[in-house]
């Protein structure tokens, strides 16, 4: 894949990359898996919305309200198109974590309503004997909501294991999934191991038993060309702030009939079609899942981020970012005492996790910080995965469109400095 642009050329769009850190070193930002930096185009789009069009979308009939509604819905269409979806399938939430919780809460709501004799789609109704299947590699956001759902409904939580070398035991699906499996949920790309999961296998397992397949696309949508309707997922989530967009906005995508069948969770204004003192009826998706005045400026900013990535071209974004990740993983593995924590059969998309024998990741991170290099250290909200890998924590470097090969090289020099300092 030919990359028609260079990171060097686009760095000027990200003013923060010009910063000098407290040690005097220039910033080397390698923590985009936690949150990406934002280009001027995104900042300008948000500012322009507030300066010229701000009003409450979907309320009122004055001109500004019309303009705000228009800006918000155009943003939805842009973001939907970015993942190959229709606007009607694209629900805005507070975050990807919020999206996953909303889905888990919808199962709980359907289960409660069903118990009270209200008609519900049976796919959302859980009880004893039913199961929920995740992987041991999941981010806490795609694990804890399912633990809670299992506790509320009596369903059993099961998981696909991870080998100590980071390989996800996808073959476990055969023994874990049965006719009573109602939910299968996994990450598209692991936020720690960095590689892509065999989501076709998860989708097939779900389809075979009529379970809903839920995809956490937080670490794939920013770096890969992703068409959510082609992933086999029934529902999928991702977050704006990891794809060059602002904080405070998540997306829940769903197939039309799944969103139609899914009960509402949060309720209030602008999601109803009719309200009496006794009861209410609700609008079709996406509105039925969006009570309250929405995050309009964030949506507009995220659409600008999607446009930015589209103008770079997602295939070449993928080529650039994965080349940096591969360069880092290969070179780190050559350093004495360094172990790259990645599945042997799943090359990194953006994130590269590693440990250094005899040196705690926090101490590595401190030396890197002293060199101006921002990485994530710790359990990465994937504590069970740390146990499966047999490590207390890892150092994670993650790359985005604005990173360069020389930044990878700076990382390598700093890791070696840290190893020498502590051993």
């Amino acid at each position: 894949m030919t990359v028609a642009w260079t990171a060097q050329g686009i760095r000027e769009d990200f003013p923060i990359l010009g910063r000098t850190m407290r040690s005097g070193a220039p910033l080397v930002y390698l923590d985009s898996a936690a949150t990406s930096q934002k280009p001027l185009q995104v900042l300008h789009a948000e500012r322009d919305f507030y300066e010229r069009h701000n009003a409450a979308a979907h309320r009122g009939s004055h001109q500004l309200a019309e303009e705000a509604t228009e800006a918000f819905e155009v943003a939805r269409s842009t973001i939907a198109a970015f993942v190959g979806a229709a606007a009607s399938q694209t629900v805005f939430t507070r975050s990807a974590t919020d999206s996953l919780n909303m889905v888990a809460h919808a199962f709980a709501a359907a289960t409660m309503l069903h118990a009270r004799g209200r008609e519900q789609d049976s796919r959302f109704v859980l009880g004893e004997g039913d199961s929920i299947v995740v992987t041991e590699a999941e981010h806490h956001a795609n694990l804890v909501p399912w633990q809670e759902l299992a506790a509320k409904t009596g369903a059993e939580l099961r998981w696909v294991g991870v080998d100590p070398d980071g390989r996800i035991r996808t073959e476990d699906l055969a023994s874990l999934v049965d006719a009573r499996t109602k939910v299968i949920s996994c990450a598209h790309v692991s936020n720690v191991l960095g590689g892509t999961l065999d989501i076709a296998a998860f989708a097939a397992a779900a389809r075979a038993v009529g379970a809903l397949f839920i995809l956490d696309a937080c670490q794939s949508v920013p770096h890969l060309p992703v068409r959510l309707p082609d992933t086999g997922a029934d529902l999928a989530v991702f977050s704006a702030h990891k794809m060059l967009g602002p904080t405070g906005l998540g997306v829940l995508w769903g197939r039309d009939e799944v969103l139609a069948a899914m009960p509402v969770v949060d309720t209030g204004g602008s999601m109803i079609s009719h309200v009496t003192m006794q009861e209410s009826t609700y609008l079709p998706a996406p509105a039925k899942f969006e009570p309250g005045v929405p995050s309009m400026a964030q949506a507009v900013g995220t659409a600008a981020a999607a446009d930015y990535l589209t103008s770079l071209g997602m295939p070449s974004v993928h080529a650039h970012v994965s080349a940096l990740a591969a360069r880092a993983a290969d070179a780190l593995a050559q350093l004495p005492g360094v172990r790259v924590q990645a599945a042997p059969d799943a090359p990194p998309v953006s994130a590269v996790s590693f440990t250094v024998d005899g040196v705690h990741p926090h101490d590595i991170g401190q030396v890197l910080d002293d060199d101006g290099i921002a990485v994530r250290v710790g359990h990465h909200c994937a504590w069970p995965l740390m146990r499966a890998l047999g490590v207390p924590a890892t150092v994670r470097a993650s790359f985005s469109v604005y990173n360069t090969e020389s930044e990878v090289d700076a990382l390598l020099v700093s890791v070696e400095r840290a190893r020498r300092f502590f051993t």
Partner: protein
Amino acid sequence: MSIEGMYQEVILDHHRNPVGKGLREPFAAQAHHINTSCGDELTVRVALDAAGESITDISWDGQGCAISMASMSILAESATAGSVAAERELHAKFLELMHGRGEVSADPALGEAVAFGGVAQFPARVKCALLGWMAAADALDQATSQR
């Protein structure tokens, strides 16, 4: 603050050769603390004399960064054989130092623990330095309240 200023030689020494590591019997109480932001964990046991006024042993085990391990080690060395009252005084002084954002001058009574004054300038690492101290204080409170 240079990296050498943060990780002073005394910290690196205690990290490499920790004092009091390995859980021992007998003990009056123990506490297990976890730094939830990073997953580091420590178990601390304290043993008291018959009167309950002096610390006869502090033993500990756990995993963590050089800061948390060295801080635990220095505490174990300085508090063992001291009085419970003196340890609590030391604890208060250490808390004050660590919450001082590098603007509080360390009380010389802290001994080797003054070396953590540099760490206090890094808010994200203060919890690392305090992990063992908080666990020890917890164990000590349990040991004394049982009596």
